[in-house]
């Protein structure tokens, strides 16, 4: 009898301990994008936070709010270099949602003040894993290269963190991407914080509420909308003749170039 009870107690303790020890693969990864497109006299820095639980992840921009008027927020991308306004009344923002289980990638991206919900192919990369190795932060990293939509990239991933994630749309490697940049060094994403211990609400990893009623467009449709916007702005630029104390000329209207060329 005593032995029987002992066994039951052992089983209960074992179940409790097993539950406590059950590993939950989740974490928050923070990446820094250094954008050196020569449009400003110094590179601009933008930070992103990526939440993942098992095979789903979502990445958000971390805005640097300078002034919040309710209607607009003024965001300072990099200290004194460039300030721009973002309309916040619709509460939309940049995000990248990856779903490994369903092999889906969904993202929210803007052209000027309009945000679009875009469906894209998940891990659309053909990685070439090289033998080059390097220590970045405290991790042993392996170099992998790929071509993606008009740019050549090199990524450094680590087997020390066996999750197939990376910043922006990157991923699909047998370890976390610690750093990735295009070979012209215009876009450089670098990990600066990795927290696998903080707990957060899993509901965060879904299409944000503000986009819930939007129709998903394809990546090609988005590229076409952007191209049309560029053409429209060029037309406006040609028509915007101004005269002031410094003389007269045309005002150039431009929208920011995209990381994906096609």
């Amino acid at each position, binding site marked *: 009898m005593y032995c029987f009870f002992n066994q039951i107690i052992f089983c209960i303790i074992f179940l409790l301990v097993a539950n406590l020890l059950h590993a939950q693969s989740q974490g928050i990864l923070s990446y820094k994008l250094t954008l050196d497109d020569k449009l400003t006299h110094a590179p601009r820095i933008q930070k992103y936070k990526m939440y993942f639980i098992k*095979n789903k992840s979502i990445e958000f921009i971390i805005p640097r709010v300078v002034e919040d008027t309710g209607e607009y927020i003024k965001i300072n991308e990099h200290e004194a270099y460039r300030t721009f306004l973002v309309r916040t009344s619709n509460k939309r923002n940049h995000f990248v949602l990856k779903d490994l289980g369903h092999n889906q990638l969904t993202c929210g991206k803007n052209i000027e003040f309009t945000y679009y919900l875009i469906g894209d192919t998940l891990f659309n990369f053909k990685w070439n894993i090289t033998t080059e190795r390097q220590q970045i932060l405290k991790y042993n990293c392996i170099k992998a290269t790929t071509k993606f939509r008009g740019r050549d990239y090199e990524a450094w991933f680590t087997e020390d963190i066996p999750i197939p994630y990376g910043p922006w749309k990157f991923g699909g490697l047998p370890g976390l991407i610690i750093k990735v940049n295009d070979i012209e060094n215009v876009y450089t994403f670098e990990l600066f914080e990795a927290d696998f211990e903080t707990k957060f609400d899993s509901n965060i990893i879904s299409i944000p509420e503000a986009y819930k009623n939007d129709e998903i467009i394809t990546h090609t449709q988005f590229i076409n909308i952007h191209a049309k916007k560029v053409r429209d702005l060029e037309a406006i630029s040609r028509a915007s003749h101004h005269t002031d104390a410094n003389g007269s000329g045309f005002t150039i209207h431009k929208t920011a170039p995209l990381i994906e060329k096609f």
Partner: protein
Amino acid sequence: MLLKPLFVFCFLFLFYNTCFAQTLKITGTIKDNNGEAISAASVQLKNAENNILLVYDITGNNGAYTILTKAALVKKMYLVVSSLGYKRDTLLLHDFKGWALKKDFILLNDTKQLAEISIKAPKPIIEEVNDTTKYNVKDFTSPEDRNLESVIKKMPGMEVSTDGTIYFKKKRISKVLVENDDLTGENYKAITQNLNPNLVDEVQAIENWVEDDLLKGIINSDDIVLNLTLKDKRKQKIIGGADIDYGTDNRRDLSTNLIGFIGKTKAFGFIRNNNVGSSQENGFQLAGQNRKLPFSGKLIDHKILAFNPFDGETMALNNSLNGSLNAITHFSTAFKINTSIYGLRNKLYGENSNTNIFYQPINVITATQQNQKSNNQLFQADVNTDYLVAKNARFTAKLSYKFRPQLFTALASSSYNGSTSDEVNQEQKDRLKNYNADLKYTLKASNSSAIVLSAKLSQDNTSQNYNPTTDIYNDVPLFNDATSLLQTANINHSLFKIDAQGLKKTGKSYLYINIGTEYSNTTINSNLYNAAKNKAIDGFLNDGYFKNSKAYLVGKYSHKSDRVAFYTLLKISLINQAIFNTENTFFALEPELGLSKKIGDRQSLNFNYSYRNTFANPLNYYNNLILTDIRNVNSGISTLYNFGTHSFNLAYSNNKFSDKYFSFNANTGFQCNDGSLLTNNFFENTIYYSQLVPYKSSKSLNAGLGLQKFFPAVASKLSLNYNPSLSEYFGQVGTTINSYTSFTHVLSTKVGTGFKLPVNFSLEFQYQNNATNLAKEKINSQDAYKYSFQSRFNISKTLYNLVDFSWYKISGQNYRLLNLQLQYTPNKGIFKYAIYGKNIFNVTSINNTYVSNVGESRSSASILGRYFLASVSISIR
């Protein structure tokens, strides 16, 4: 010549490789030890000799993988399976002959891995982002900090007064938000004095805070709030802590505090019972802009006083039970309701002896010994609703009910000019009720203009019964042979106000126009009865009122550029005032202007001037006597009395938080009135008469200086605060009116080595001086000093000892207080343990002397003696 063999070699090499290249297929599933499939795990096939990755796959939802490659035959290969949070598994494929393999893996948990691979970017100790200063709470918290307030005290730029009011850069904090939600309003002491600091990630001081989102960018606000961000970011959670302290003489301090995020509701609650001196006498009240607690609203005010000018609030003989429950529910993005309930029961005990020496020509000495008890209670309920009626319109309603029953009893013996003491039994029963409703409708007309309509209705009712019984009154003709007296007072105050405000922003300029009307009525009904016969005594009936009606128009223009800001305001009022025998209607013009300039990056200079029409406190309007103490009768004023007050304020601020951890703030203010009130004092038949009389202009000057420097390496703070003030007042004795000047200096400085070194020390010095001059002659100077020494010795990483020694020198007498603490904080787990020894030298009373224009008062009050406590703290996650 050389090319040919090279070409042949390459050809042979390729041919050799092709001959041996065949399709290799390895399949299987990855599961954990509970049999659950592990998704997003990586499976790599590697060359065992050089560890080069040949091919890999990532598992899907079902944990399945497929390695498919036309791999060159390598003698030794590794199949490596890894997933975050699990131990890596490796299979050696040695002299692998087959071309298809099925292999399933079960991975074991690896709990240590997550902590090892995490990288925490060093979080700045203090970060300044525009109007927000963020303090990383962890860098200011030592294990002995039991509430957030003690951590806020260490933050440069912050100050916490003894009543719990928080100041940032010497400006008062109006609210404390939890994750951007206002749970407690002005009662934020409930949070700051009870919340466990280990739950908080950041304390953010937000300047120029605008409560209503609709008005952001349209108004230029001066409000400062604190926002607390929590460490645990989960939405569904209940976190908090509990402290259980119990010790000798049934001394105890039991408390629990919880924060819950459940569905759409965010809630904070705490409950605390202690009899270790934390007196809670001021309940949830906080000081106003002038650093003084609001007026009690009572005509008769008996309470147990602490005569220790430094730590009086923490040494009382008490039994206090208090708690609050505050919740906010966001029913939708447009509608939220905030409900709060506060409760307090504060029992205080005190033995007090008081000698009043009245100077010439009064020349009287009275002495009183009292055994006092009080039981003050508070029940308060608040409901605030916030409804976004349309995209550009918001309606808010704030309703509040407060009920405060208060009881004071004392058994006293009182003597007059050395006569035999007479016994006096006193009882005072008060019931204070307050109803308050604030309604507001905000309409955002455009991106730069808005209209705000508001209404306020409040009703205060105070009923007081003071019942002294003594043979002293046998010899006082004033009381008609009664030995038991009952002084009643019923005060009603009602206020109704409506206001319409138009707001417009143009470029960097802000325009505000208010038009409104305000009506208030205060009535005082009081009388004195012979309690035995239930018969009124002549000369004590008061049946007065004070009505104040006002219609006003206010225009304010402010301009804010990057470097300079200024505002100008003019209030035009038509005022009608009435008391029992007079009525008066007049115009009042009240101008105000302010100028502020930023110097460099972090320095600023502010100046402002205002002129206000000040009217006498409505509770001063009564013309017959009111018995307020054993031997005291008071009378008020009986004619309408208004005077103007000019205020000039200058402030300099230099704060370099994020890099230098430095804060320096200085201010000075000068006020002059063209009127004031004086008291006319005299004794007659052992009874002391005080009569309020309107009098001429008076002046006051005050200054404040605060210097704080934080040393992050050892978490040490150097602070220096100096607040001198000077005020002029008048007193009448007999027919002579004298002009008095009172000087007060309050100096405090603290320096220490923080809490990160193995052995730490801190030194503190506080000094208070109050001096009174009659014309140019100094008639009094009272000093109080506090010297403190604290040592913190880390015996090990988990065990430390704290010694806290204070030496007070108050009115020439010395007191030595020693507190000891031994704390054990295990590296892991939810428990902390401590042993406290308090007031080891067993000091049981503190004496103080107070000098006024008519005499001096020497008092002795009992304090909590020696006791020991054992303590367990539990954190609830």
